[in-house]
């Protein structure tokens, strides 16, 4: 059993001695064939005999009380098995990350569309019709449907928050004394998850044991919440989640898991509860809107003396202590002696706010990186030169050294590849063409993760962990780590994920999944290698593993032979430790974009995007690139499209489907390139990879905004940037 706690830099391992040559290779997903042929079975797709269906019944008010739930007519509809409504067992909404259990129904409604019951029937259509036939009578009360409504009694970060307020020096004084200052407010709107695969659960009971099939991105995190809500012990819950169609932070927990479990218990059937797209908008959590005041003060040469980003965000009253940590990316980004990075959370009556890809940076880097662009222009400096002039030696907020930071190389490499120096602002027909750049930064985490690796008599390795693959490529990179460590071709490694009976992995979230789970697999392989060496009679360091053989001195023995009748099992566990505090850890990057703005209509079309990331060791260049460009594309959406519009009369999202809640389509996505400057970051974790799942989105919306400004001269500070906001500043027709 290899356990390692990151209290000091890791010294290297079998993975590093590996000569198989598979680590880092751009290998296509090993689960790709199963996915494109439809044999990868997602949560809701399991065919189970005698299945019953449940559909949530919701309350159509934003705040108030339910006074009556009339289920009479619905109960009499054909195919209806039961209707459970108005009981405390019904979860009102999805418990947010950090919330110990779901709030049960108690007659109160705190945000639009909360759940009041579930209709269960023999087929989905019957359940849906029954759910719609239930008459939910409510008394609406005035609610806080805008974060500004809660500004007066907004709360500071709680004790132990991920992003505590950071106030250093005196920013007001520094702003007063600086030769050049900028004090601007940026806003970003509420945004929702709406991953391709909708939320939904199949729940079944065998006696006291509950089996949940649902997309759950952190199995070990969800089980205690399910247990606490249902009042059962965690050991009696099994979660199966081998394939997930997009998680992005939105599938840490979901109300349908509880609804399905309650419905299955009551009816004695296996029950499937899918959420409709409209319900997903209201009963799963999204991202808070933000109001960000950004302050920058510098001397004429561009040296910053004041840097601040102070924000107001919202959270549903009573939901969780989670808040959108707006300044997470900016707090350690630029030097400057006087600093203020604070967050106030307003209590509102809107759907709970939880983690969405890069909580903090995804929206916070909009304010900071657009402001940096504005400030560079004020100073008459090239935006890269301005940033370089303020590149800190150590973390400017904590004083800690960086575990690794190659941001300057990202700027230089990106500028060279993009042709930054030769960019030319111009008009082509009706299109105004402009360019921009922005910095990416995403904090790096490590999470406790365990994995088992078993080398069998057939010479194949089997990896087991309840780690998940959200579509990110976990299956593939773990196979690569084991292949490299054990000298096996990828085809000789089997990977089983997403089953709570396996050792508890980190799960997918916060960009810690790849590095944490890869480290646990690499550590488990250490055990296997030590045992192989013992059987070879060699020192592990002197033994080479390649193509399924161990080589030591002049002996070459197949692994199958070494295993013989006794399979070799390794267990690896990585634990975060003091390097997490001792070193400031982040993935960095530089974005570049070329944009066209239609001079007549203000329509915006991104023409090309390029980014370079410093993300530690790259475990697979193909899946890494996919993560990076996926984030960049989402950045286009945050710049131009995504906006969950709240009707402030009712608290409801108005555009709650994918026809009207816009995300980029293929036609909106331009030529897009991502590159990496690699370095094995030994302070971060044993495999030396830094998080990449979220770095791509950090700064990606800002680069689009900065290029729009370059193209047409209009600076929009309220996102998303839509044609109507540019019209007034466009040339006459």
């Amino acid at each position, binding site marked *: 059993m290899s356990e390692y706690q990151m209290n000091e830099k890791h010294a290297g391992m079998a993975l590093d001695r590996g000569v198989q040559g598979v680590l880092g290779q751009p290998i296509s997903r090993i689960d790709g064939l199963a996915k494109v042929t439809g044999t990868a079975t997602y949560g809701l797709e399991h065919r189970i005999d005698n299945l019953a269906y449940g559909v949530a019944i919701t309350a159509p008010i934003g705040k108030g009380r339910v006074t009556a739930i009339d289920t009479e007519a619905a109960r009499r509809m*054909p195919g209806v098995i039961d209707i459970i409504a108005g009981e405390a067992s019904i979860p009102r909404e999805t418990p947010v990350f950090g919330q110990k259990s779901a709030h049960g129904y108690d007659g109160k409604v705190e945000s639009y569309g909360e759940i009041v019951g579930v209709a269960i029937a023999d087929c989905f*259509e019957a359940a849906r*019709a029954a759910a719609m036939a239930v008459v939910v009578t409510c008394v609406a009360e005035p609610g806080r449907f805008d974060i500004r409504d809660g500004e007066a009694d907004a709360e500071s970060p709680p004790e132990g928050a991920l992003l505590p307020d950071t106030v250093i020096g005196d920013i007001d004084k520094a702003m007063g004394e600086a030769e050049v200052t900028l004090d601007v407010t940026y806003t970003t709107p509420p945004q929702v998850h709406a991953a391709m695969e909708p939320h939904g659960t199949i729940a079944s009971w065998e006696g006291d044991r509950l089996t949940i099939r649902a997309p759950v991105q952190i199995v070990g995190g969800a089980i205690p919440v399910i247990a606490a809500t249902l009042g059962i012990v965690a050991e009696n819950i099994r979660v199966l989640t081998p394939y997930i169609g997009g998680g992005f932070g939105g599938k840490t927990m979901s109300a349908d898991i509880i609804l399905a479990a309650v419905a299955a218990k009551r009816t004695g059937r296996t029950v499937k509860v899918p959420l409709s797209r409209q319900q997903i908008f209201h009963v799963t959590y999204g991202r808070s809107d933000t109001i960000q005041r950004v302050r920058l003060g510098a001397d004429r040469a561009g040296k910053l003396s004041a840097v601040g980003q102070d924000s107001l965000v919202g959270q549903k009253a009573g939901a969780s202590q989670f808040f959108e940590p707006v300044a997470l990316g900016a707090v350690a980004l630029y030097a400057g002696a006087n600093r203020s990075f604070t967050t106030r959370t307003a209590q509102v009556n809107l759907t709970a706010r939880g983690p969405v890809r890069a909580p903090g940076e995804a929206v916070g880097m909009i304010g900071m990186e657009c402001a940096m662009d504005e400030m560079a222009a004020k100073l008459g400096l090239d935006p890269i030169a301005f940033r370089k002039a303020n590149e800190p030696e150590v973390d400017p907020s904590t004083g800690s050294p960086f575990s690794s930071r190659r941001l300057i190389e990202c700027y230089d490499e990106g500028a060279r590849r993009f042709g930054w120096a030769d960019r030319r602002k111009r008009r082509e027909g009706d299109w105004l063409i402009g360019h921009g750049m922005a910095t990416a930064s995403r904090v790096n985490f490590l999470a406790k993760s365990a994995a088992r690796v078993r080398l069998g008599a057939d010479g194949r390795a089997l990896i087991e962990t309840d780690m998940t693959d959200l579509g990110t490529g976990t299956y593939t990179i773990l196979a690569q780590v084991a292949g490299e460590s054990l000298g096996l071709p990828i085809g000789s490694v089997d990977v089983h994920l997403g089953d709570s009976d396996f050792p508890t992995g980190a799960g997918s979230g916060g960009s810690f999944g790849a590095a944490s789970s890869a480290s646990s697999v690499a550590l488990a392989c250490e055990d296997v290698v030590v045992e192989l060496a013992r059987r070879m009679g060699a020192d592990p360091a002197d033994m080479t593993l390649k193509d399924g053989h161990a080589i030591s001195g002049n002996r070459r023995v197949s692994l199958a032979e070494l295993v013989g009748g006794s399979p070799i099992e390794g267990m690896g566990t990585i634990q975060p430790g003091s390097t997490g505090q001792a070193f400031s850890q982040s993935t960095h990057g530089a974005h570049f974009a070329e944009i066209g703005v239609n001079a007549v209509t203000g329509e915006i*079309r991104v023409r090309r995007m390029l980014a370079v990331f410093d993300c530690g060791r790259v475990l697979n260049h193909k899946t890494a690139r996919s993560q990076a460009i996926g984030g960049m594309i989402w950045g286009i959406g945050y710049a131009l499209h995504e906006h969950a*519009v709240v009707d402030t009369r*009712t608290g*409801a999202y108005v555009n709650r489907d994918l026809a009207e809640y816009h995300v980029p*389509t293929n036609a*909106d996505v331009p030529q897009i390139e991502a590159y990496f400057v690699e370095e094995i970051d030994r302070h971060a974790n044993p495999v030396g990879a830094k998080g990449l799942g979220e770095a791509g989105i950090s700064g990606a919306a800002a680069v689009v905004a900065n290029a729009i400004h370059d193209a047409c001269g209009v600076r929009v500070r309220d996102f998303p940037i839509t044609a109507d906001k540019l*019209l007034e500043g466009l040339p006459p027709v």
Partner: protein
Amino acid sequence: MRTFDYARADTPEAAVAGFAQTGTRFIAGGTNLLDLMKLQIETPTRLVDISRLPLADIEEREDGGLTIGALVPNSDLAADKRVIAKYEMLSRALLAGASGQLRNKATTGGNLLQRTRCNYFYDTAAPCNKRAPGTGCAAIGGFNRIMAVLGTSDHCIASHPSDMAVAMRALDATLVTLRAEGGQRRIPIAEFHLPPGDTPHIETVLQPGELITHIELPPPPAGRQIYRKVRDRASYAFALVSVAGAVSVEDGRIASATLAFGGLGVMPWRDPAVERALIGQAPGSPAFEAAADALLAPAKGHGSNDFKIPLARRTLISCLRHLTGTSL
């Protein structure tokens, strides 16, 4: 379960005969109707499937026009060589709509009858005179970015979402129908759609059980053609503003003009005053501004859709420059 009867019609006559019961609906591509049924915005008790009727041909007419079967898929119509050559604006309008998959399913007749995308129309908990007559209009005083600025009433401000219908309006199409009681009817597209007034739930002059069998296009208009769709993203978004048109110039004067607009009106919008402002004038800013004035004089914004008025002005003027080859 909400059950409904389903019958597939083999002939147009059988299709309309099947309408004896109330609560009956035709279903063609189903791309609009099924979505609405799932949300219980439409709750028919009987569906007559017309998708297999022999109405999927495009034929040339003696007058140089085209007769288009009501079941011609949007994709096929857009790709038809004769349409591309003579009715470019129609082909472009179709390709600007929805997505490839939807266009493969969507039919010519169904497209003309697609219902509004008003957000509140889709929310059965919201008041909506179009969906539930007499309940009010949530879009007035609410979020109305995509709603109409022309032809609205105090009862409904929903915009008509179709692209194809805008081109059809500029092209002076005529709908040919088979009436429930038998017998054909010819309805000029100008008379087909109805403004909301105080009955926004009545959207066209079509009578219950009346089947659109064909759409006739007269010979193409003179001059260059355009379909310009302004939208929030590059694909798969309804028009904020669209312009379908053809303008011809002779001896330095605008000889003919036909212009219709999408995204702006409660129905595919055409206003003779716009064309009057252009015909006989020299192409150039004064005439173009006058045309925009004529179009937008009656326009009324409702808050979040105010921007459509300046956007329409700019788009129209730019289109007119393009159509007449006039630079700034």
